[in-house]
């Protein structure tokens, strides 16, 4: 997208859960970008990894889960970004040229860094190497290695090149302390169920005050109270002074969600992640909350990442939509484009299966079968078992992400090799 500044850029993000029963790949190489002042919708069914995306961005993946690959660039300046991409291409070239022995060494090094598990480098076959480091994208580890080798030859003015700034805007390289100062201040999140996501034993004012004083350094009680009142008014709570004194359980569901939004917006973050913000609410309240979110985005100029299973909600609110299935983004497009021309069979099926108000049909079209088991590694496309149009190649090869028209990306074999005329 020319002209728009990317705010958050996710590249090849992979999040896995290491359980006794096996490894679950909750996110399997996700790429997408959130630009400034836009709202992106992430749509998918239960268990497709949409919430995990949010938690990965905040580096709050729970329990046995780990981010095992990829980068999350946040607020990266344009020049750094350009130089980084340039260097990545160089590194890729360099990697392609290097010998098998060297590759083996690199892969072992990279894999150890990212998954924390040592691999015997010498036993790797070329196929395995290609699997760990796909030839079309060189992982961070390799780039860094390349850079470490060549840093001395770079000119002193090239600060990015001389390693210091290269991945410093990658959230995954931040220390815990740095990360904490980003959470709540620059990236904020709204949780799905306001009933369980507010601390039950502290008042609304306390919880809001805690966050505000932490990130804005306001400790004076009176100033803080005023600020809290302001924030509550911002989310259209009619009697902020009353609500401040109450405990979460004394508020209705809609009110709690407003308080949650107030918490998220209290420090005017540049990115707001809303994880199913209206699923636990009634339709009329949902409409109020969606209106509120949309208006707030418009006035504050932040970006929003709206995660939901409800196609109606994204159609109402979002500028761009990513459709997720089994830990992968299968389609990404501008809202109008996606609803007008759904290219991935899953997207099309989902749209058709959704009963629409005022368009009564005798039978809804369905997607057969159920969501696959994420513990199984997929050879090819994850949707293959449920797809009406699946061919043999779908079960064998993972489909590439192709841009079929400007800004419209699909990962499906029906579309590989059919890049749009204006693209690249």
């Amino acid at each position, binding site marked *: 997208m020319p002209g728009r500044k990317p705010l958050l850029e996710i590249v090849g993000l992979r999040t896995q859960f290491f359980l006794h029963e096996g490894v679950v790949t909750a996110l399997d190489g996700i790429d997408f970008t959130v630009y400034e002042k836009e709202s992106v919708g992430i749509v998918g069914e239960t268990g497709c990894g949409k919430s995990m995306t949010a938690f990965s961005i905040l580096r*709050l993946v729970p329990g046995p889960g780990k981010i095992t690959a990829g980068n999350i660039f946040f607020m990266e300046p344009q020049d750094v970004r350009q130089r980084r991409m340039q260097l990545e291409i160089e590194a890729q070239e360099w990697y392609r040229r290097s010998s098998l022995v060297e590759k083996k060494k690199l892969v072992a090094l990279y894999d150890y860094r990212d998954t924390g598990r040592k691999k015997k480098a010498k036993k790797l076959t070329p196929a395995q190497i290609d699997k760990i480091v796909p030839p079309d994208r060189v992982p961070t580890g390799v780039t860094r290695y390349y850079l470490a080798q060549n840093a001395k030859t770079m000119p002193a003015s090239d600060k990015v090149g001389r390693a210091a700034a290269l991945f410093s805007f990658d959230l995954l390289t931040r220390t815990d302390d740095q990360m904490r100062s980003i959470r709540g201040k620059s990236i*904020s999140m709204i949780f799905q169920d306001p009933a369980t996501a507010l601390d*039950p034993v502290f008042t609304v004012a306390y919880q809001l005050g805690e966050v505000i004083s932490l990130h804005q350094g306001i400790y004076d009680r009176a100033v803080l109270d005023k600020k809290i009142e302001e924030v509550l008014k911002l989310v259209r709570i*009619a009697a902020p002074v*009353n609500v401040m004194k109450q405990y979460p359980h004394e508020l209705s569901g809609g009110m709690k969600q407003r308080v949650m939004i107030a918490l998220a917006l209290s420090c005017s973050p540049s990115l707001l992640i809303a994880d199913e913000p209206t699923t636990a609410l009634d339709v009329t309240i949902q409409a109020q909350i969606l209106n509120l979110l949309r208006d707030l985005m418009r006035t504050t100029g932040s970006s929003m990442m709206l995660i939901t299973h409800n196609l109606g909600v994204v159609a109402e609110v979002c500028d761009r939509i990513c459709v997720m299935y089994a830990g992968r983004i299968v389609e990404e497009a501008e809202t109008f484009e996606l609803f007008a021309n759904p290219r991935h069979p899953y997207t099309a099926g989902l749209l058709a299966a959704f009963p629409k108000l005022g368009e009564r049909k005798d039978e809804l079209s369905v997607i057969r079968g159920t969501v696959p088991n994420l513990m199984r590694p997929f050879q090819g496309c994850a949707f293959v078992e449920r797809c009406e149009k699946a061919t043999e190649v779908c079960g064998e090869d993972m489909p590439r992400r192709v841009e079929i028209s400007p800004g419209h990306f699909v990962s499906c074999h029906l579309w590989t090799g059919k890049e749009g005329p204006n693209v690249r």
Partner: protein
Amino acid sequence: MEKLENPLPFHFICGTRPKHAEQKHLWTAADGGCKGKKSMADLISYVIRKILLAIPVILLATFIVFLMLYLTPGDPIVNILPPHASPDDIQKLREKYGFDQPFIVQYGKFLYRLAQGDLGQSVSRQTLNLDVSDLIIQRLPKTLELMAIGLTISYSLGIPLGVYSALKQNSWKDRSVMVFTLVAYAMPSFWLGILLMLLFAVYLGWLPIEGTVGGFKSIILPAMTLGLGNAALTTRMMRSSMLEVQRQDYITQLRSRGLPESEVIFKHALKNAMLPVITVIGLDIGWFVAGAVVVETVFSWPGLGLLVTNSITNYDYPTVQGCILVLAMFVVLGNLVADILYAFVDPRVRLG
């Protein structure tokens, strides 16, 4: 009643109202959003209800205690009198103590006397005809002292250990704490007492073996014996409660706001995790009361517990009655305090 403190400002009760209808309800926004707040009256009503609920427990205790005496197969009268006493003497004494009347009358009288603070007289040879209440009052401070120190040990050990164990979940530190709690919980208090005695009094000779002669030193072993088992229980509860709380959505929410980990754990998680521990304070006091009987016997600690066991061996049932009743009161009181404490601490407790 929406009370107004001063003529103005009125607006402190009301917020903005829907634009469309001049006289329409602002309460839809203010009340509809906020469910009722706990009022002082509710709290008082709650406390009264809890106190009323304690009455049947106390009655049950008196009944059991009374039944105890009534069922006793050994005749206390025979025990007091010399072996060659005549049936006449036995009869006389029986009438004196009221043992000849029907069950319900005896119980009624018992309750009546109880209400006046009269627990009867001891029938044991050593303390014959002494007021049981005097005996108890004499011993009570010692038991209270023991229980207070025992409770302190158990919470000051159990709560930090539980939190620590939860924070180090699944590490060897956690495992060793868990093994310790398992053993400490399974250890019968009298055997633990014996072991401690063996170690600190017999072999090391640091602390007196029993009795109260050693001043503060002599309370250490009994209090530790009493406190350790409950400390183990508290540790386990605290750990599981802490783990449970850490799994809650709101903890992730707090982390997502960038709060420092120490604040998340020690302010938010701890406060929530303490709640279930508070509910069992009452039960803990029960545990201590029961434990005191055994521990005092082991260490010859001159408290109520020792009085009970001595009285049992002497067939001095009025004294046993009295002691058990007093101990039962502890339990009831402990539960009451825990309930009320909980209502104060947890804003979610429904008082209605």
